[in-house]
């Protein structure tokens, strides 16, 4: 092996001497090639900037549009000419939404429903996820398989069952928001459980074993040692349940029957209830959308760092 390399390098030596002359000659050429490459490279870079600019307009224009629409009086929205800036910006739409529409009721209702669903979902799924991650018992594998199958079943497909059950129980007429919260909790529980279990699996079990040796009970070890370490996964799951609820329209629309003023609805159903066959009050739509979308989007972006550690670990290792 080493002999071969030696012979090949020695035989290559004289050639290298000849080549060096050519190499000198081609310095000019390589410089020219490098120059044209750089030129081509800068054209490329320009094209990439152009592409990013177009994509940014595509991404941001609808968002800009709804913000400027919320600042217009309703008349100036219904124009067939293009007008990108409101000539006389006004906060009238916001005033109307906050005082004349049951907007704050919708927000409060949605907070109640999503908050309760998140609380129930996280409590149930975290303890079960811990058991599935740390304990071995008969039926564990079976439970995991069943949970997986259920996760494939979207709740919307069972809407009829929910509707008939809750109607029979009288929930739809007495406490529809409570019923909705329970349905949302049930819909998210399985995903949260998988996600949090996946995260528990990455936490070394030695930590709890050490705590047990030191005299802690298993529940103390869970609450004091493991649970604090699993905060990212729990936060990510909680965020998903909470934010998901703000956008859920289909089930809420069936379970909630609007009263005279519509004050008993959630945001998603409430905002679309403003629309009727004859008229769509875009200014109010836009103002209400901005009021809800800004905090929800900001939370989403802020908590996205949890997705990196919480969700991806959970979903990849799940």
């Amino acid at each position, binding site marked *: 092996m080493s002999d071969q390399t030696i012979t090949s390098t020695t035989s290559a030596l004289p050639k290298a001497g000849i080549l060096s002359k050519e190499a000198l000659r081609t310095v000019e050429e390589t410089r020219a090639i490098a120059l044209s490459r750089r030129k081509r490279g800068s054209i490329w870079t320009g094209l990439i900037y152009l592409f*990013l600019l177009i994509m940014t307009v595509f991404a941001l224009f609808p968002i800009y549009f709804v913000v400027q629409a919320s600042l217009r009086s309703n008349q100036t929205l219904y124009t067939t000419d293009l007008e990108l800036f409101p000539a006389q910006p006004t906060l009238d739409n916001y005033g109307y939404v906050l005082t004349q529409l049951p907007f704050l009721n919708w927000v409060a209702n949605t907070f109640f429903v999503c908050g309760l669903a998140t609380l129930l979902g996280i409590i149930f799924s975290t303890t079960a996820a811990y058991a599935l991650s740390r304990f071995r018992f008969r039926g564990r594998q079976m439970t995991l398989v069943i949970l997986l199958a259920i996760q*494939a079943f979207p709740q919307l497909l069972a809407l009829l069952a929910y509707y008939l059950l809750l109607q029979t129980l009288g929930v739809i007429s007495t406490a529809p928001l409570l019923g909705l919260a329970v349905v949302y909790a*049930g819909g998210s529980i399985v995903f949260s459980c998988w996600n949090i279990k996946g995260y528990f699996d990455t936490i070394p079990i030695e930590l709890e074993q050490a705590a047990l040796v030191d005299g802690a009970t*298993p529940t103390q070890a869970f609450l004091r040692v493991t649970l604090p370490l699993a905060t990212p996964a729990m936060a990510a799951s909680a965020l998903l349940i909470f934010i998901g609820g703000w956008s859920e329209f289909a089930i809420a*629309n069936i379970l909630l029957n609007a009263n005279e003023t519509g004050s008993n609805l959630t945001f998603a159903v409430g905002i679309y209830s403003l629309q009727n066959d004859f008229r769509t009050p875009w200014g109010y739509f836009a103002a209400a959308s901005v009021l809800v979308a800004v905090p929800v989007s900001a939370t989403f972006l802020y908590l996205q760092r949890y997705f990196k550690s919480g969700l991806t670990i959970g979903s990849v290792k799940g």
Partner: protein
Amino acid sequence: MLRVKPRLIATYIVPMLMAVALVDVWPLLYTVSTSFTNKSVIHLDDYHFVGLQNYQQAIGSLDSSFIYVLLLTFLYVFVCIALFLLVGMATALALNNPRIKGRSIWTLALMLPWAVPNVVTPLIWKFLFNYDFGTFNQLLRLAFGKQAGIPWTIHPIWAFISVVIVNVWLSYPFFTVVILGALQSISQDLHEAANVDGANAWQRFRYITLPLLRPAITPATILSGILTFQMFNIAYLITQGGPITSPLKPGVTSFVMIYIYNKLFGDTAGNPHYGALSAVAVLIFFILLGMTLLSLRASNVAKGANT
């Protein structure tokens, strides 16, 4: 594993199992059992077992409305996923280019559609698509004169295109994030080595980048396919599943979930046949179950490829 008393295990897991049984398993079983009956609004209590009749109706003949809706849904999923991949890949490659300045600002701007609550998104786009007052037709009139205008959401084909555009707008950032993350984990040495060997940019992309991205892209694609398949808000809140062109046929944006929803609770539902719709729901469940198993397999393969 930790050795603990069975009673403690039960305390941890039984509450969740009971919740799942009540809120998830029971409705599922109810739907399955209803699918074998002739239950409807009229026959709410005096229904009886009809065997596989509902299933036969749903998939027995190729021109049943369910088959039509299913094909529409698959077309929608296919077109959307192709565009997600294209736009996601292009944006990720652009954002990963070291010569681009201010990449975190560009990334944030391109991420924003993802953060908008998806119940607000249809509202915005519905207005942009409005024939008379929408921005798109205002622009077209500016460019091509007073008569110009596209019947977005009114004409079947344009309605389909509209819901695809909106879905691309709100979903491509997920692919940008996934692909960008995977791109950043690819060692620069590989590219340099290929460059020395004389591979051009396309060859480097085709034979180095793409194969290394596959473990990240495949599970994301299947997951996104599952979510697009069962998507409700976008198409329903923009078109209600319409436009309806014939009383016998569902609208061109009546994707599976919207189809069931309209049949059960829509304005023209009339006398909903609970049995038949439950059979459709069960069939959709099996399709989704198949896709879920596929995604598990894909992510297992991906994991194997990584280690």
